């Protein structure tokens, strides 16, 4: 079973490259049981969206 630390590395790399089948399996098994890492996955997607938008928002003077 992968640790949270290992899973966090894979989740971060999943933003950069396609993970292999073994990696994806290890990841999904861990995520089924771990809310913290599931939250982290959603947070990664959110941070990407937020950073892309942060220079384009119009609210600044």
């Amino acid at each position, binding site marked *: 079973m992968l640790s949270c630390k290992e899973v966090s590395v894979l989740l971060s*790399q999943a933003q950069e490259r396609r993970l292999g089948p073994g990696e994806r399996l290890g990841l999904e098994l861990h995520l089924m049981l771990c*809310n913290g890492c599931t*939250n*982290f996955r959603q*947070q*990664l997607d959110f941070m990407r969206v*937020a950073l*892309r938008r942060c*220079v384009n928002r119009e609210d600044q003077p």
Partner: protein
Amino acid sequence: MSAPGDQDLQQYRSYLLRYALLQLRDPALAEDVVQETLLAALEGRAGFSGKSSHKTWLTGILKHKIIDAIRRKSREQPLTSADDESETDAIDALFKPDGHWQRFPASWGDPERSLEDRKFWEVLEMCSRLMPARTARVFMMREVMELTTEEICKELAITPTNLWVMLHRARLSLRECLEIKWFGNPAK
């Protein structure tokens, strides 16, 4: 769309500056690249094809100027193995020795709603300033300038493994900061 006039260019100045500052974290340098961009735009008006918006066109010029500036910087201070080590240490510090999170990531509820809140952006920018400058530069090249892994590695002469470690550290650091200062902060 026709080529932008002087007034149009000035109108984009604050946007360009914010973009450059986020990347470079050096106000003087950011000012320089924005000036160079506006100058290049004025001189290169004929090169404006009308196929993209003014903003997209200017951002394209600015990106090149920022990459040039980052390349110059990274030539002056190349990454050392000590830098790699400090990245790894920073990651290690967020986990217990058995690999569990020190601070379990909490649910952020409906985070998209924060995108409408001006104060959220201030927190985001503050959090990104907490990262070491080098880490932040690499992170912003990836997330804001949307360069590919290959492009960043080529520009900075680093390996994908180096890059992934830096990006991971940046994400963990930003996550931690946003959770403490924003999502987990009842006073927000």
